[in-house]
């Protein structure tokens, strides 16, 4: 209930993320002994100087290969989970994930287009066009969903918008399948992208998504009170003076921008956006004041950790992170469901 109680939860969430970062930076197939890395991380902080026995070459592996991956994992996991919690709240539907209105299907179509039709034209470009095309398609698809929903009076009812999302997602997937079927040689590459991965993460990717994640996060955190009002229904919220259609639009736009940005660099990592918010609800309650920040922190820590076995299990090949998230997350979620009453 109290602010003091909240602070304790947020401190716990932050510690969880820090532990995940240290673990994620320490473990990998090459590089220094894992137990030397935490010390070296502290050593690299300003004003602290001691010898941990990590060479500059080894540190380069930690800093240039592992750290971007860890940071990007944190951004992607946190954003997907925050967006998932938000979508579930604004549509009052526990089965909703951040891909509901077409962000994932659009990004998938964009990536498919870039990897098939666009491949020849962009082969010698200095930068990879896939993330940008995926991002543009993701945003455009959600806009189409919103336009369709609004045309059927979806601004009054969240349900219409969800149904419009279902229709637009099916349509988008159909186009994607059609393109793939005519470009069979690209199937492997497209599926590798769709399965989602952090393995090629660079600081450039981090810099690309940080602004979107930051803006989206700030906007969503400022709407926690409105999301609580949505819990009593659109009509009730309206009689309490909430401008339902406008507020929902702002929330959905913010969540979608962040989702589209992270999806365009990481591919479609499932499960995080659906289940992490539910886990948070089970342990910390359903009020959005606590739910949103904890989903952000929990999703960040969870995806950083889920990425660790992915790089170790089937060396030198990578296990797709989406496989790991579901493999660890699903049993854990079922365990929580069984042992704790919802909201108890």
């Amino acid at each position, binding site marked *: *209930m109290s602010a003091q109680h909240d602070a304790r939860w947020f401190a716990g969430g932050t510690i969880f993320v820090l532990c995940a970062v240290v673990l994620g930076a320490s473990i990998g197939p090459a590089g220094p002994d894992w137990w030397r890395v935490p010390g070296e991380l502290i050593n690299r902080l300003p004003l602290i100087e001691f010898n941990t026995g990590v060479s500059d070459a080894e540190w380069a592996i930690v800093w240039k290969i592992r750290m971007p991956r860890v940071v990007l994992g944190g951004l992607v996991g946190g954003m997907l989970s925050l967006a998932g919690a938000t979508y579930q709240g604004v549509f*009052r539907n526990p089965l909703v994930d951040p891909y509901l209105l077409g962000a994932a299907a659009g990004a998938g179509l964009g990536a498919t287009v870039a990897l098939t039709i666009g491949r020849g034209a962009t082969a010698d470009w200095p930068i990879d066009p896939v993330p940008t095309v995926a991002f543009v398609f993701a945003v455009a698809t959600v806009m189409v969903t919103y336009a369709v929903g609004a045309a059927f009076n979806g601004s009054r009812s969240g349900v219409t918008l969800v149904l419009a999302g279902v229709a637009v997602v099916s349509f988008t997937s159909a186009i994607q399948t059609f393109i793939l079927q005519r470009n069979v040689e690209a199937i492997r590459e497209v599926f590798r992208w769709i399965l989602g991965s952090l393995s090629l993460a660079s600081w450039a990717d981090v810099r690309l998504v940080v602004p979107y994640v930051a803006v989206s996060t700030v906007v969503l955190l*400022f709407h926690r*009170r409105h999301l*609580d*009002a949505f*819990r*009593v*229904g659109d*009509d*009730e*919220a*309206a*009689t*309490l*003076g*909430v*401008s339902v259609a406008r507020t929902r639009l702002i929330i959905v736009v913010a969540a979608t921008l962040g989702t589209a940005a992270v999806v365009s660099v990481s591919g479609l990592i499932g499960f995080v956006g659906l289940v992490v918010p539910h886990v948070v*609800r089970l342990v910390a*309650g*359903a*009020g959005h004041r606590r739910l949103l920040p904890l989903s952000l922190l929990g999703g960040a820590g969870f995806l950083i950790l889920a990425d660790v076995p992915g790089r170790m299990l089937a060396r030198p090949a990578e296990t797709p992170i989406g496989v790991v998230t579901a493999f660890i997350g699903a049993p854990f979620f079922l365990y929580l469901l069984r042992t704790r009453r*919802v*909201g*108890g």
Partner: protein
Amino acid sequence: MSTITFSDVSVQYGKKRVALSGFSDSVDAGEWVGLIGPNGAGKSSLLRAIVGLVDSSGSIEIDGTPLDQLSDRDRAKQVAYVAQDPLIPDDMTAYEYVLLGRTPYISYFGSPSRTDRIVASDVIDRLRLGEFANRLLGQLSGGERQRVVLARALAQQAPVLLLDEPTSALDIGHQQQALELVTELRRSEQLTIISALHDLTLAGTYTDRLVMLHHGDVVAVGDAADVLTADRLGEIYNVCVTVDVDIDELGNRQVVVVPRRGFPAP
């Protein structure tokens, strides 16, 4: 206390279905008006038009100010609305729910102030919900939930309270408790109340004045004794009833509407 004036208020769904046509009336400050009539008569449409949940034509004024000139938040400070079947999140505490009633007083990016928390706690105490404040709504009984919903509406501190079938989900004991509570609050909070009520006995007994609607038109207005006649009920509801209206020794009106065997032919 506030007066509500309706001039030629109509509500239409789609092109064809007219739910309410040309409703005009004036509800005095502190008055409790009961809307009665068969299903689909337009009772809920009228209430929903007042809070802007459905589009309506004509004008609705509170103390001379047209409601459509108020912002959503300002309107919510004037009129509190309790839906027929409110969505009650199981995993929200009673206190959090009541605090939502303070929404119109909180700026867009603001959070509940000390005053908001005091008002919410105060309402909870007055409705004798103190022991439930930190309980989850899913753990409360139907009667307790109804009181929590009423508490949320009172936390809005609006002079006008709209109740859409406030007793439909309750057993006879809790129906009486809820309406006695509304009676008490109306005096202590000086509320103007408009409520839709299916139960004619309760409507006649508790409200000051009845407005009977049928297919969107007003068919009778006035005191229970004038509106609730066996002939009219037979005609409008297609039932066979006995009506008994009596004033008890305390001056309270007692209305009894009892169905009789012998269904009239349509």
